[in-house]
């Protein structure tokens, strides 16, 4: 049973991360983000240390909840509202996801078995998740999409790095970074009206 869950935890997060690149509605995107963190947490928790896995899952849930509050305050803007979205239909996005996934696989395969004591499948899954996060960052620079992409990339990084450096303090700092990304993005999604009107400069 544990083996099946560990196996699934290496497949589900990259798929959820790929799904985030298809510009789904924000509510679906948050569910996919939770899926990424749940898979990564399950893999680390069952394969390495349960408390680290649970903490990562809790971090993902909390980050998603904070982002949900931000999206709610901004009235759930769809992807494409905001600045600088690269115009791309779903077919184009699907094609780029496949290409980037293939590239990540190609990069990971020669090195996957030689990095620390990490299983090759875990390294490959981590690189796929990071690549999907980075792709999302490249496809949009709107704050909400950037937060989703960055959190995805950070989750992939944790899947990889927690195996190399299992320090609890580092886990705490990285969890703080993830929550900081979610919190700051949530604040920025909604105009605060607090910033003073700076006089324009020459």
């Amino acid at each position, binding site marked *: 049973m544990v083996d099946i869950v560990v196996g699934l935890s290496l497949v589900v997060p990259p798929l959820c991360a790929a799904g985030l690149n298809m510009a789904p509605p924000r509510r679906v995107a948050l569910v996919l983000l939770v899926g990424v963190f749940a898979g990564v947490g399950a893999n680390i928790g069952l394969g390495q240390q349960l408390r680290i896995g649970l903490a990562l899952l809790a971090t993902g849930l909390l980050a998603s909840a904070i982002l949900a509050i931000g999206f709610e305050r901004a009235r759930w803007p769809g992807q494409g509202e905001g*600045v*600088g979205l690269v115009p791309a239909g779903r077919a184009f996005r699907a094609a780029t996801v496949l290409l980037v996934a293939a590239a990540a696989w190609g990069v990971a395969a020669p090195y996957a078995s030689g990095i*620390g004591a990490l299983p090759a499948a875990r390294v490959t899954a981590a690189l796929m998740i990071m690549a999907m996060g980075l792709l999302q*960052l490249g496809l949009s*620079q*709107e*704050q909400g999409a*950037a*937060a989703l*992409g*960055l959190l995805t*990339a*950070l989750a992939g*990084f944790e899947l990889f*790095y927690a195996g*190399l*450096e299992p*320090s*609890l*303090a*580092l886990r*705490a*700092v*990285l969890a*703080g*970074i993830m929550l*900081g*990304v979610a919190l*700051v*993005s949530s*604040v*920025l*999604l909604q*105009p*605060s*009206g*607090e*910033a*003073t*009107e*700076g*006089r*324009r*400069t*020459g």
Partner: protein
Amino acid sequence: MSAPLLLLILGTVLAVAAFALRARGWIPWLIAAGGSLLLAAVALGIVLGEPFEVMGFGIRLEAGWTFLGRSLVLRPENRALVSFVFVSGAILLVSGWASDAPRRLASVGLLILLTLAAAMMVQPFVFSPTLIAAAAILGCLVVVRPDGRAGRAPPRLMVSYSLGMMAILIAGWLIEVGGATVSPESPARAASVLLALGLAILVITPPFHTWLTASSDEAHPLAFAFIAVVLQTGGLFLLVNSLAAYAWMRTDPLVYAFLRGIGLLMIGLGGLWCLVERRGPRLIAYTLLVDFGISLLALSLAAPGGSGIALGMASARPLSVAVWAAGAANLFASEPGIADEKRPVRPIAAAAALIGALSLAGIPLTAGFPGRWMTLANAQGTDVAAVAAVVFGLGATWFAIGRWGSKLSAHPRDPGRTLGRGRTVVLLVGSAIILLFGLLPGWLFSWAPAALTGLGAG
């Protein structure tokens, strides 16, 4: 109690106070700037490990504070750097009131300074990039548009520093645990590439500078200047600390070649962009790139005092950009609406903005010049490319800022003296200090040798 914990608690209390009183005119800025100076004084002067009395109470402060098995340590050798972070922040925050900066900059700015100070104190050193990334994420709250909405700058800043952090953490693991050093030989090549990538992001090397130009376009001048200067200082100190901590890094010619390469790249590209740029804030962003590049070049020359020159330049920079930002924020006497070239400018604000910009560009008799002169003197006769790059950087920035000043002089002057006495005093005093440090540069550079002796670098 421990000194790092005292700094964190004191700083957090001050930040909360600045946030709570953010609508009270100059008070949050006084709390932020005064608080930064207080924290600097505590970091530099507090007695460690021996009991002393404060208002009749006996206190003994320890140098270290342990959290989850890792420590923040205020060591004799890092006290000057920690103190410098707070002083440079104070210089920038003091002009917050005069420049009508976003009110949240006072409290968020203090938190950013605290995070960077923690990055200087953390042991082991591998945690530093995570704290610098945390500071950058906090910085996203202030590089917003005037209406408070996020533009292109916050996502770019957040993403750049997070990626830089990831690269350095992996490189750190490869070096510390994997036993690799920076070398072109496989398998250490991966560590070299990742470390170079991470450091390049942290010291704002093109093409990882796009958040800098985006924030110069969108954010308030002081918010943009604050984030650019303190984050680059954090990256520079990480570099200097790493050089001091790792003997293999200090003695590896490849490391210096890398620093020289990115220094030349920053000066070359920054200079070229200055030549084609006409907008004031963008011009300052590119001038900052040239300034950063020259300080890295000074560091890379590995000549006596190279690190000291880089640190001295880092101490001139906050002063120059603070005066520029205060001047630029008060430049126009009318709101946008009429044609830009017809907007009346305030002469004193324009003069302050110009003096700040010229100091940043390193014109003689300003605080920014001595660092460039010392870099030229160090490179002369040994590195022709470095000399040519510095001369090109100086020429390009002087020309571009002169052209900007000439454009300002064509604007009608504000006849109404609408600047206000307090702001006039701040601008005049700031400009006078820049000129004073131009005449007495020893004051700017005198702290660096002591800090570097403590670190074991030089």
